[in-house]
């Protein structure tokens, strides 16, 4: 699916002093059907990395290929294929939905955008698709005429997931999808994500700082620290037999129920 080759992202003007190297020479591969977790703490720049995967940001060096085609450095109008196939779910359910739009319009926005509208792989019947995705996330269709502020955090996150599913994507990129939610609601959303990924055969890339969540959902994991990859591999292997010192430190720091 994705091939990331020696990608770096530098902030600041070319050659000027005071530039910041955020992502540093990262290479990884995401295979179809894989569930990849990206873990790291603040400063690991994991969110920057996935934004580059979704072509919302451009690497300053290196290359990103999606399904064999280069997507880094390309103009917006050539990214239709990527945009239709790769969708995002953001961390904060309060800011990821436009407070002035109704849920129906929010969820069908990907279907109405100029870039995706005329593509053959994108559903044409917006109303039908709206009903389908709302049902998939277990929200009644009657809610579609309401505004985001009328919903709880967990429900808003489900709306965001419905929006991501609308154009029938192949890849779902989730940036800390449950971190901003109450503990009692997290399990619901995680179960939902698991189900959807299985039902629709999606490839999942999930960013989280919570190692237990990643262990539960992902079959492969990448550990990032300060813009670099410290370790990567199948989840069971990395968690069971960590090689890098940082990975061991991370795993040891996870608070466990003590009694």
């Amino acid at each position, binding site marked *: 699916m994705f091939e990331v080759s020696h990608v770096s992202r530098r902030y600041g003007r070319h050659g000027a002093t005071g530039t910041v190297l955020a992502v540093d020479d990262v290479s990884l591969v995401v295979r179809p059907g894989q569930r990849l977790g990206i873990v790291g703490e603040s400063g690991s720049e994991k969110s920057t990395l996935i934004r580059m995967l979704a072509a919302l940001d451009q690497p300053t060096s290196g290359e990103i290929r999606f399904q064999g085609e280069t997507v880094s450095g390309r103009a917006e109008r050539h990214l239709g294929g990527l945009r239709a196939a790769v969708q995002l779910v953001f961390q904060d359910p309060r800011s990821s939905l436009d407070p002035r739009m109704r849920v129906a319009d929010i969820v069908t926005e990907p279907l109405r955008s100029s870039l995706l509208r005329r593509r053959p792989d994108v559903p044409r019947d917006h109303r039908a698709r709206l009903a389908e995705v709302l049902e998939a996330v277990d929200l009644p269709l009657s809610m579609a005429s309401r505004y985001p502020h009328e919903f709880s955090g967990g429900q808003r996150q489900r709306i965001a997931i419905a929006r991501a599913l609308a154009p029938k994507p192949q890849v779902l990129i989730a940036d800390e999808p449950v971190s901003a939610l109450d*503990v009692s609601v997290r399990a619901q959303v995680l179960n939902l994500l698991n189900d959807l990924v299985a039902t629709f055969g999606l490839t999942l890339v999930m960013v989280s700082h919570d190692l237990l969540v990643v262990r539960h959902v992902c079959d492969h994991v990448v550990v990032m620290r300060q813009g670099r990859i410290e370790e990567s591999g199948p989840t069971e292997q990395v968690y069971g037999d960590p090689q890098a010192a940082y990975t061991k430190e991370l795993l040891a720091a996870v608070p466990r129920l003590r*009694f």
Partner: protein
Amino acid sequence: MTPSAEPLLVVRDLRVAFGRARNEVLHGLSFTVGARERVGVIGESGSGKSVTALAVMGLLAENATVAGSVRLHGRELVGLGDRELSALRGDQLSMVFQEPMTALDPTMTVGRQVAEVLRLHQDTPHGTARERVVAMLGEVGLADPERVADAYPHALSGGQRQRCVLAMALINRPDLVICDEPTTALDVTVQARVLRLLDAELDAAEAACLFISHDLAVVSQVCSRILVMLDGEIVEDGSVGDVFTRPRHSYTQGLVATARLDQVPPGTRLPTVEDFYARDAGGRRGAP
């Protein structure tokens, strides 16, 4: 330890309402915290756990009406004037907040802020304040405490700032420290260190602690007893071991089940709170 007539903190039938409409958010809470005891308060947002902490500290907004009793060392706090409460705060009773950036004044150096707390409550002859501030900053694990004392909050990392906040809360060796989600905003490795620090400092200060969090695992690192709050009421009160292994209320059962991610095989369905405890719009029901 000499037994006292009554526990350090006794809260009886505490009710808090806001606004003219008197929307009650706490419906008659009753609990105690003994000397040197560490009690955790677990609940989701809206359960009223932060309101409880603020009520004990006397820090609620102007439009709050407080009824009931909060006694510290046998002395009634509800209804006390601000001057008397201020004398207690920082001295016998202190609080650690979630967001260290907003708990620290960005225009003052850290050293000055810690010194302010010290001078407010203790006699500090000229020149000794700085010594004690630096000593305290060192005690909370800050490397190069002299430099940190002269630094402004924005120059420090999140973990460092939270240690400074801890220093401020502990420098007068209070009897009760209230922590409101003190590590929620921190990275997990930093959190582990700050929790260990808190554990050690509470021991050194011989202080009791009321630890508020949404995270069961975090609470269990520091506390020996747990209160579970739901919609402004305490639904469970017991030792950490009892609450985790033999929870009585169905909501607690749900919380414990959903928190034990390590017990569930990866990829399978996670237990949700709803599996144990379902609530409808009006009232509450037990198991679905």
